[in-house]
């Protein structure tokens, strides 16, 4: 017993030092990419391609660490000190939060790279069960009685915010821009949501694995991925008449990258996203490349053409959209006010 206690004390102390050492050993040529949920498969492939490219150009080996989660959660982790060299999040609003709450990246981060720092885009579509038993064709069908809609919580999920805004844009157009009626329509939509997961992946699992709901409002790339993972004979993709141009942005977290001596590799990493190889991989993983010329035409052919609204033109940018819809007490919260 005596031995046990002494040894475990020594072990504990040693392990504590070891772990501090391990944390500092991060300062090697490892790059941390903090990303959102549906990009896992894409970055897995892209990281390998980039590491090979960097090795060929500089002779240096680089390892890319990945962290995935809800976009808002990931932004908060970076604000709280997660040592991300680059962030690749679901929406500009989350990177704006990092810029406003820390001095780790400049306020004009979005102007550092082409296309508002969004190397690929996506949109929002519907995923329904095979044969579309509830005959869902467009957003209007989602508020019908008896239709169960799966979408994550816009408070915690970036994808859910795009879902919400796409729905809002459709309703506003249909209802002639009447805000009160649009609000009511949105409230009807969320009344049809039986499970509000915290992230896009959670919702997909609820819909595809648990068999809940008739329609999943989903990232386009996520919908394709579900067909790939769960079999195309189980689900159909329905493209609504109108959707939103989702621009998931990327940025170097300069404060962290500089401190870790990673600025060069972090910048090269993001630039590589815009390279023909990066663009090709994006298209392969169901993201719409900003430079379609370098993508495989077969991959491009999968993307349907549809009318897309834009966050900047139609909603006045993320700062405004956040304040109008998702801030504490804003329109989304009003949906979930007790009605008594």
């Amino acid at each position, binding site marked *: 017993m005596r031995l046990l*206690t002494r040894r*475990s004390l020594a072990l504990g102390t040693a392990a504590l030092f070891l772990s*501090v050492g391990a944390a500092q050993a991060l300062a090697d040529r490892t790059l941390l990419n903090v990303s959102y949920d549906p990009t896992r498969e894409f970055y897995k492939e892209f990281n390998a391609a980039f590491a090979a490219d960097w090795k060929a150009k500089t002779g240096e080996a680089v390892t890319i660490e990945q962290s*995935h989660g809800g976009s808002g959660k990931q932004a908060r982790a970076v*604000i*709280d000190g997660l040592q991300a060299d680059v962030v690749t999040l679901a929406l500009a609003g989350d990177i704006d939060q990092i810029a406003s709450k820390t001095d780790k990246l400049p306020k004009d981060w979005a102007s550092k790279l082409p296309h508002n720092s969004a190397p690929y885009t996506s949109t929002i579509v519907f995923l329904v069960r095979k044969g579309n038993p509830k005959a869902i064709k467009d957003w209007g069908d989602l508020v019908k009685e008896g239709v169960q809609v799966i979408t994550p919580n816009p408070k915690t999920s970036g994808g859910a915010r795009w879902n919400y805004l796409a729905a809002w844009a459709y309703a506003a157009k249909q209802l002639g821009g009447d805000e009160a009626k649009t609000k009511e329509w949105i409230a009807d939509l969320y009344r049809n949501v039986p499970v509000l997961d915290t992230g896009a992946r959670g919702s997909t699992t609820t819909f595809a694995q648990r068999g809940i709901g008739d329609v999943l409002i989903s990232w386009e790339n996520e919908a394709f991925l579900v067909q790939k*993972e769960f079999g195309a004979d189980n689900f159909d993709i329905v493209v609504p008449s109108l959707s939103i141009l989702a621009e998931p942005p990327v940025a170097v977290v300069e404060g962290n990258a500089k401190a870790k001596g990673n600025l060069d590799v972090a910048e090269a990493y993001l630039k590589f996203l815009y390279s023909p190889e990066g663009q090709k991989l994006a298209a392969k993983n169901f993201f719409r490349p900003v430079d379609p010329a370098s993508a495989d035409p077969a991959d491009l052919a999968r993307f349907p053409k549809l009318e897309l609204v834009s966050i900047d033109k139609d909603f006045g940018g993320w700062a405004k959209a956040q304040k109008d819809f998702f801030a504490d007490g804003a329109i989304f919260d009003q949906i979930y006010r007790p009605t008594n």
Partner: protein
Amino acid sequence: MAMSDRVLPLAHHPERATTETATTKVILIAIAVLFLAAILFLPLVTVFIEALRKGWGTLFESFSDPDTLAAIRLTLLVAAIAVPFNAVVGLAASWAIAKFEFKGKNLLLTLIDLPFSISPVISGLVYVLLFGAQGWLGPWLVAHDIQIIFAVPGIVLATVLVTFPFVARELIPLMQSQGTSEEEAALMLGASGWYTFLHVTLPNVKWALLYGVLLCNARAMGEFGAVSVVSGHIRGLTNTMPLHIEILYNEYNFVGAFAVASLLAGLALFTLLAKTFLEWRFAGELAASARRH
């Protein structure tokens, strides 16, 4: 009840007096077993069925994934720090509480118990508030380039907090019931304090200590909520096994997720087996330690 029954129940029905009829017994046992089957066994069995859905090969394959191995290593490291620490604290706390009288003992007991009933989310949150870049010590830590949350130290701290009472909770009632007479006798015979503690007190509580350590270890390896808040979820670096399960699950790798889960469930089973073995082997000593709470 008839008069004759009142006088001679024991003579006629020796069991009646202190037990139920056979039918009642069977019904009660059946209810207990059915309830446990639905609530406890089903989730456990589900884990193994899902893990084996694609056969043993896939199961072992998912263990050889480097990220899974990293998660297992991290989990072992965290438990290797948190469990001995809490064992030492538990021994110190139970020595002070069980062997001495002092003011505020009830308060101290309550504070030791507190982590039992704090939401794990809060257990993680407090360290973010303390050590996060926006937290109280954040600026100082950043200036000195020390990373606590989103790194191993933060995960260890959150785990220690969540499992803080486990060993103490096992030891205190046992040591209270044992009193202090044996230690006093040893001291009277000239033994030193440390000698008394190591050779009198420790042997008396060793099985309760071991059981506390087992439970503490199982919880330390399985903690999810608290660790999730402070981890940063970096693949292969700050993912513990439960977090890795969530990640695999989110990557539609359900077999992989349940494979790692089956490891943890296996650990749970091992804990229970070890405990049952201890009880069987040392029935007398543990009967006393069963009087915890």
